[in-house]
């Protein structure tokens, strides 16, 4: 009974965070299985695994929607923000604990609705984008897509309110904005973006629902509507969504790299005021580049090319600050740091392949090819997923009071890291040669010998799947039977969650109220001679 009371009905931010983690890992596992099916289907040209292209669309829908809405966003802004922020800023809980519990269960309701895809007739088959007119005219159940977005979106908005208020009003007495830890700063930016942009997505999918089931004309051009309106509203949220994913991921990397290198965050103020604030400011002016091919005047393409490239300025501030944190650092390479190190490479790779995609002349040709597919998997999906994995390993002792198994963790890391490289590099190559995204069958390109690249890519996916499975097994096993940590601060970190709270952190987080002085910094490693 007390298990149900203290876990299912919990309002404690740490347990709500772990509920988010369980839900998002479940979504990750199922959506990962879909990815394996997609890779197996593309192994050879023609249809082998799926019976029709429509079934393939359902798998694509579930993979995309569940990975982004069910795993990345809830993993970063649900699990990580919940577990880390109050501990990190010295608060006993979030501002609205019941609202927090409401958010996590709305998210779970969304996951359940998404999983119902597999049992209902007329499965949704609209990708994660749900573009009309197809989504309005399809026999598939677009309503479940819409309601999944509503439930998870509402959960996101409520979480944004909760954490914006928490960070503004509940920092430990004495903690100024220039002392706020990087993860809290980055996630604060992500929550501002969510608060502003998620409602627009909610409005867009609501219009879709009305068009399909009430017969309104929002996206019906024969009656005065506009199909491109949906794409505009959708990407007005969904482009900034990549910053909702990027910012907390970067924030966690700062914490991990600084702690493992025993080095202060390089150029903290530039990263915060140029990087985080800069991204929040320019996030809302980039979305039109998703419509390059859908149709727009040439002059607008040029303008959008400039705004898209502009985003690399604040991102550059943050990445330089992250690299600078490594300067003359005494790095301890454990599993968290290995994932963080892989992220350095992934963000560089994803960022550099993003530049040609911002260039109008190139992107008009590269759009809808697997080059784009590989690009965003590296920069958004895998980069952020690795940051989540790094964070789970880093804060594992704080969550469970035990440490994760190192050997299994390192093995899983190398399988994951090699696996994703093997999966997506071939897709860059065949993407440049014209391999389209989203195709179950590529017989029409028989002369181009794409099959051997797809073979390699599928082998990579299998490696990654083994790695991910080992990783999850490691977490579950170590949470129950892992070696107990001796003290509250196994990494020798200077953050409040390590110096002031026990492992695992108990109810109310801190035995004593936390206050910090004006000279306090989470990254002050001067006792290590820095």
């Amino acid at each position, binding site marked *: 009974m007390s298990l149900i009371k203290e876990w299912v*009905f919990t309002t404690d931010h740490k347990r709500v965070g772990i509920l988010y983690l369980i839900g998002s890992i479940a979504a990750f596992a199922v959506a990962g299985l879909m990815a394996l099916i997609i890779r197996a289907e593309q192994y050879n040209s023609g249809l082998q695994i799926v019976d029709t292209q429509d079934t393939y669309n359902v798998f694509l829908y579930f993979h995309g929607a569940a990975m982004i809405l069910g795993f990345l966003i809830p993993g970063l802004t649900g699990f990580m923000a919940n577990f880390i922020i109050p501990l990190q800023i010295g608060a006993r809980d979030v501002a609205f604990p*019941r*609202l927090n519990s409401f958010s996590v269960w709305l998210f779970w309701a969304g996951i359940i609705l998404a999983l119902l895809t597999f049992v209902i007739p007329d499965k949704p088959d609209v990708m994660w984008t749900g573009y009309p007119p197809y989504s309005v005219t399809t026999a598939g159940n677009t309503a479940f897509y819409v309601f999944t977005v509503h*439930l998870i979106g509402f959960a996101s908005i409520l979480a*944004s309110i909760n954490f914006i208020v928490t960070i503004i009003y509940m920092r430990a*007495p004495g903690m100024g904005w220039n002392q706020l830890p990087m993860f809290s700063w980055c996630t604060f930016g992500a929550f501002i973006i969510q608060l502003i942009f998620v*409602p627009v997505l909610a*409005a867009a999918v609501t219009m879709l629902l009305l068009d399909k089931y009430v017969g*309104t*004309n929002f996206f019906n051009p024969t009656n005065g509507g506009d199909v491109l309106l949906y794409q505009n509203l959708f990407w007005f949220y969904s482009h900034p969504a990549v910053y909702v994913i990027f910012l907390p991921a970067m924030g966690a990397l700062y914490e991990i790299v600084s702690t493992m290198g025993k080095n202060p965050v390089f150029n903290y103020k530039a990263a915060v005021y140029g990087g985080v604030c800069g991204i929040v400011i320019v996030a809302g002016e980039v979305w039109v580049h998703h419509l390059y091919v859908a149709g727009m005047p040439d002059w607008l393409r040029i303008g959008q090319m400039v705004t898209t490239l502009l985003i690399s300025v604040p991102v550059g501030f943050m990445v330089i600050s992250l690299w600078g944190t490594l300067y003359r650092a005494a790095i301890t390479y454990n599993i968290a740091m290995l994932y963080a190190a892989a992220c350095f490479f992934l963000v560089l790779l994803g960022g550099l392949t993003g530049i040609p995609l911002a260039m109008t002349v190139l992107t008009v040709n590269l759009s809808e090819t697997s080059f784009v597919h590989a690009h965003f998997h590296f920069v958004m999906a895998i980069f952020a997923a690795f940051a989540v994995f790094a964070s789970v390993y880093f804060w594992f002792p704080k969550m469970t009071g035990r440490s994760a198994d190192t050997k299994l963790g390192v093995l899983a890391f190398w399988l994951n890291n090699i696996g994703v490289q093997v999966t997506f590099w071939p897709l860059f190559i065949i993407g440049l040669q014209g391999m389209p995204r989203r195709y179950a069958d590529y017989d029409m390109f028989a002369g181009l010998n794409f099959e051997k690249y797809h073979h390699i890519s599928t082998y990579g996916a299998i490696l990654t799947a083994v790695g991910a499975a080992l990783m999850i097994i490691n977490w579950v096993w170590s949470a129950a039977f892992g070696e107990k940590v001796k003290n509250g601060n196994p990494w020798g970190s200077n953050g409040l969650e390590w110096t002031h709270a026990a492992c695992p952190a108990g109810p109310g987080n801190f035995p004593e109220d936390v206050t910090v002085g004006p000279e306090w910094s989470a990254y002050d490693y001067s006792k290590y001679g820095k």
Partner: protein
Amino acid sequence: MASESAASHAHGGAHAHHWEYSVYPFILSFGILFLVPLAFAALFIYKIPLMAIAFAGLGTPLVLWGIAGWVSEGISVKHLVPGISVAGLPVFIVSEIFIFLSIFSAYWAFRLMADVWPPAGTPVMPTMLPIFMTVVLVLSSVTIHVAEEKLEHGDVGGFKSWLILTIVLGLVFLGCTGYEYTHLISGGFVPGTNIFSTVFFTLTGFHASHVLVGACVFIAVLIPALAGKTNKPLTQCASIYWHFVDAIWFFVVSQVYFW
């Protein structure tokens, strides 16, 4: 800052040894799952009314139970930072503004790109009714302000009567919307008629749903007040929300009736 830390200390001291919990958020979220997506899909997509009734019959009591329990708990339990909900509600309103902005920008895009406006099939829209509705809504903003003043001065009786008056004005507004809708729909102007009807029903309907939510929140404030329990932050939040709904109405009314 000093008072905040004192409050959190008192809280921490009192609750540091057990995990806090509440059953109501869980009940409410699954009530919503049954009531909205599942009942909707059963009725409109799979056309199985019995299943829709079952889902709605399961969802409705869960939602009501969840809200009622949450409100009574929210009134009695102390927050870590007293009155912080008053800081949270304006943040929520920011997101509300962006939902309305999306629908408005859709409307502006349609209207500015249309060859002829109003599109064929649009009847002459009423002008007296929206003016009356505006007056009602502005009055209700005044009455809730008076109610708050009464509460501030400890006059719970006056608070209750002004609150009831506000709720009545809100319901009058909703009645006007209902009357207008039946009138327009019987005249053949339905959401699918043309692009104006699409935006008209979406904007006014979405706004009316906010009036309904506001009125329900006031009822949730009123019921404990009748039992003698008042809560200032909750009342303040309900009132801020109501003023927001009132302010949005000016945009709605000026854009759809008088442009």
